[in-house]
């Protein structure tokens, strides 16, 4: 993971911000050209950062998952983390986190989904999570459902 971070380093937007790793790229708006009444404020001087405040919860995603065959019980999840605890993939690639996938789908955080959707294919379908899930959410099935859903996003 750190290799591709290096060569992205140079032309990365907002690299001068100290806490850069905690701001999504699409929220930094850096104009090439910005003229304020004759003063050239292009580049860093003209940057604004959009807020990440979520003003409304979007439940459309979870309705879609519930329609898919193995996504029926996604609403039972209480975020206890057992699925990720037993998941062999999660302990190797922490960006693949079944609990977190279910969470961002339930909350409808599209920006998080866009950021992490490329890891969903890592699910091996081993079913360990479904075996231990205390609420019988069948996370393994939900992961398959999310595979379908994330393609459409």
């Amino acid at each position, binding site marked *: 993971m750190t290799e591709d971070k290096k060569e992205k380093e140079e032309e990365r937007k907002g690299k001068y911000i100290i806490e850069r790793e905690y701001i999504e790229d699409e929220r930094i708006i850096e104009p090439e050209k910005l003229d304020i009444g004759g003063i050239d404020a292009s580049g860093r001087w003209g940057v604004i950062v959009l807020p990440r405040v979520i003003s409304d919860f979007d439940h459309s995603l979870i309705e879609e998952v519930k329609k898919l065959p193995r996504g029926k019980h996604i609403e039972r999840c209480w975020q*206890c983390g057992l699925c*990720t*605890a037993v998941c062999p993939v999660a302990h190797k690639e*922490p960006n693949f*986190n079944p609990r977190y996938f279910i969470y961002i789908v339930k909350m409808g955080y599209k920006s998080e989904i866009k950021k992490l959707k490329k890891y969903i294919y890592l699910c091996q379908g081993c079913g360990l999570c479904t075996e231990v899930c205390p*609420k019988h959410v069948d996370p393994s099935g939900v992961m398959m459902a999310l595979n379908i859903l994330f393609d459409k996003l």
Partner: protein
Amino acid sequence: MEGNKSILVIGAGPAGLQASKDIAEFGFRVVLVEKNSELGGAPIRWRYHTLAPDFVPTEKVLGPLIDFVKNNSLITVYTNSIVEGYERKDDFFKIRILNLRNKSISYENVSSVIVATGFEHYNASVDPRYGYGINPNVIGINELEIMISNGKVVRHDGKIPKRIGFILCVGSRDKATNPWCCTVCCGVSIKQAIEIKKIIPDSQIYIIYMDIRTIGLWEKLYWQSMENYHINYIRGRVGEIYWTGEKLLVKGEDTLVRGPFEALFDMIVLAVGMEPGEGTKQVAKVFGLRVNEYGFLSPRIPNIHYDSGKDGIFLAGACVAPMSVEEAIGEGSAAALQAIKYSMKRDRKVP
């Protein structure tokens, strides 16, 4: 009709003892039947050192009850015995008591019955994740309580553990095992964590939890554990405990701070929850009492615990629902009053 002057109490746990004391003090004769050899139920069987939330020694709470029941002439105690069967006469019960040791049968006539058969700890060996019974140093909070009473917490090889982890909700809140919350294992685990910290001051103690449910006045345990005793809390679950030969590799997820984690622990304590004991099932069969889908005795109205729905039979304590010692004692008194009222009414003294 000497029968209507005595009451049967099944189970000598906190509820049963309190019921027997109240009935005897009221002047009625008590027949106390206890499956094990000593009185006191789970707190004494597992030698609870102190009781949450104020670390009151169990001895101070149950000791007087046990002494009173042992020395009071009105109370006949049958230990190592169970109620094998009964016949319902017109206004009293003919109880058949079987002594498990010498298989002798004895009969008692009583006017009413109080069932206080209590709970059993969940047997964690059923759940393969924790390796309870296979991995050394994976113990239950009941076994830990014995160690704390001895004032010495040690590993299987006798050494002092440095990093100790408590895993809450073992066997509880899980559709595969017991889908209910045992109400006390958070408070008890935190109490034990504080007691360990007193015994081993430089130990590192972690409590791995889903929700901390220290209800009511027990909340001060939670705050005290962080403010004065520096107990660490990880919000998440444990997927696997692996014995590496000298330490326990615990794999889990910290949903708030660390993400998926693995850590070496010297000792893991499983907060095993409460489930209906063997005694409760046996008595339910004998008296034909209704049992809910979880296996607990089901009162006629769920919110009124003492009323079993059968005439003259009353319920008390953890056989109805998971509860703490203080609640069980309270329910013991409640059931005693109902049994006395019922017995006196049979005697036409009370209109």
